[in-house]
């Protein structure tokens, strides 16, 4: 599904990704772990098309098509979804309006009829229950005054609504207490499907107890330094990043 070859990217002239190679097939769940500053978030942002980053080399294809040629919104419509680590607020725009606009943009792209307000309300209410959000929050401004946990649940709810081909979850576990982590994980597990891939970016192993990955990759210094199965994460937890000769508090970004 997703194929990354020798991807290089920089921000403000500083190279962050220094040759990433990764193959993700439909139905698989991959976890990317790594210390702070290793380039995990950059990889998520670059795949989603954040124009603040410059691609300086390599290629990325989605089902054989060149992803890097597409604008951010086109990538989204092709099925790339990014759950943000720090979702931004859009004051005055109701969550409901925002979500319906997004869902209808996707539907239109697929040649499907757009959903009217009543149909969408029904769908949104159902999905909000899946992540344990009170439907009243649909009327609030996008992320406006949301708690950290609500923001993260809102992101997963959007993934459930938009049904992407590839869901990238950027530090979705950060700032969550145990109960919220369980709710968010249930949401992510509900996303798992044969025709969908999930790429999780996380610093900590604990998320992987709830969402069990098929593959684990360790990112350090802008490169994948080790890949393995579920057991790699457990070993990392036990032995620390130092085991792979990586400093955990690498603050090079």
């Amino acid at each position: 599904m997703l194929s990354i070859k020798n991807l290089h990217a920089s921000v403000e002239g500083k190279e962050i990704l220094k040759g990433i190679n990764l193959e993700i097939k439909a139905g698989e769940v991959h976890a990317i772990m790594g210390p702070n500053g290793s380039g995990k978030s950059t990889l998520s942002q670059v795949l989603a098309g954040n124009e603040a980053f410059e691609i300086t080399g390599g290629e990325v294809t989605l089902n054989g098509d060149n992803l890097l040629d597409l604008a951010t919104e086109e990538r989204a419509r092709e099925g790339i979804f990014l759950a943000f680590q720090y979702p931004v607020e859009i004051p005055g725009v109701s969550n409901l309006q925002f979500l319906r606009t997004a869902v209808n943009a996707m539907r239109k792209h697929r040649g499907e009829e757009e959903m009217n307000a009543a149909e969408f309300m029904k769908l949104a209410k159902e999905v909000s229950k899946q992540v344990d959000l009170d439907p009243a929050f649909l009327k609030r401004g996008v992320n406006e005054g949301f708690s950290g946990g609500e923001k993260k649940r809102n992101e997963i709810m959007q993934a459930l609504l938009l049904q992407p081909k590839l869901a990238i979850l950027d530090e979705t576990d950060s700032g969550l207490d145990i109960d919220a982590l369980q709710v968010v994980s249930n949401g992510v597990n509900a996303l798992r499907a044969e025709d969908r891939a999930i790429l999780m970016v996380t610093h900590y192993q604990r998320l992987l107890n709830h969402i069990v990955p098929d593959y684990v990759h360790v990112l350090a210094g802008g490169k994948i330094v080790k890949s393995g199965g579920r057991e790699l994460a457990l070993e990392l937890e036990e032995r620390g990043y130092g085991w792979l000769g990586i400093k955990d508090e690498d603050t090079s970004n």
Partner: protein
Amino acid sequence: MATTDKEVKELIKREYEHGFVTEIESDTFEPGLNEDVIRRLSELKQEPEFMLEWRLKAYRRWLEMDEPEWAHVDFPKVDYNSISYYSAPKRPEDMPQSLDEVDPELLRTYEKLGIPLHERAKLAGVAVDAVFDSVSVATTFKEPLEKAGVIFCPISEAVQKYPELVKKYLGSVVPAGDNYFAALNSAVFSDGSFVYIPKGVRCPMELSTYFRINAANTGQFERTLIVAEEGSYVSYLEGCTAPMRDENQLHAAVVELVILDDAQIKYSTVQNWYPGDENGKGGIYNFVTKRAACIGKNAKVSWTQVETGSAITWKYPSCVLRGDNSVGEFYSVALTHNYQQADTGTKMIHLGKNTKSTIISKGISAGRSSNAYRGLVKFGPGADGARNFTQCDSLLIGDRCGAHTFPYIESKNKSAIVEHEATTSKVSDEQMFLCRQRGIDPEQAVSMIVNGFCKEVFKELPMEFAVEAGKLLEVSLEGSVG
């Protein structure tokens, strides 16, 4: 209330959609202004003597006055002698008495504008007084209004039919010599609307006027006078468009509102005069004086305006809160793009006890435009317990535009309370990235973010207007991304 993506696409593609010119014969004065022109105008309108005297007096005052230069706008001097001061669609005989008698070409113009004149008027329950260039063309819904005792007619008709009311109230809020443009308007105003709501009457429908400037090199000087007697209520809507022309056109209107004890006027404007092209060529000079006098106790007035048009806007809808416990409100969205310049705001003059005012101003600047809020909050010595709340927010799109805030506060009463909040924000890259990552077009994302920013003002608009205002913003923001 999100518009569908398809609608939005079409809207974005459109440029200034009201920029067509209607081919109709018209009676137009030769350019130039002198006492003879005013006499001719007054004669043509079969005005009583007092009206002519009033106009001439205003003209003489105007001659002695200088054009104001304090506003934060920059434009070449207007040559007042190159403007024609009267243009009316030519009609076979007299004024048309019903819509059937109106030139069909003119009606098609209104259709193009989407004015709810015919069936749409009935559906929407809106009575429309449409002012085309200088003359009121048709006023719909006269009968049900008459039944309620409401007078809603062209002001030229009111001058003839209700001279006592006109004499009493015309110029009572904005005197002829109030300012340069008000004096000019008083001398040459050609038409406008007159509304009179009798004591205790709640106007059975929303009243509406659409203004359009069509003829080239014509100034439009309309005059609106609304009187709300004791305990009455009226909601009044005003919409404006003009064709695209390379020359600048002058629009100098005066609106006077008189509100007596326990009465309320809600005045909403969606202003979409031609703003000029993307290089700043052409467009309307919109120099308008709007003022409401809350004469009575517990009188209430609210101005709600959405301003997206005009090359230059110079406009400060104001409230004089004379009656005790009277309330003034000002809700404004002003959007400027390309080379547009706006200097707009309000004046709240607190004279009576316990008078209250609220100002919510939202300025949006894009392109190379300049957007200034100018507001005066004044408390007279008798304004015990008066208070004002002002919130002034600016939103910048891009990095070549400007936003300015000029708040003035004058207080002669120690018990008065003023609260002022101001913010400036940008449509951030992060917000845009979030929207686009969810598959939303950049143009649609900007318009959604801007609409959210304006929400507090839009909710004050009547439903129909709120939808129109939202769409207008989308069209006006075209090309502001990337």
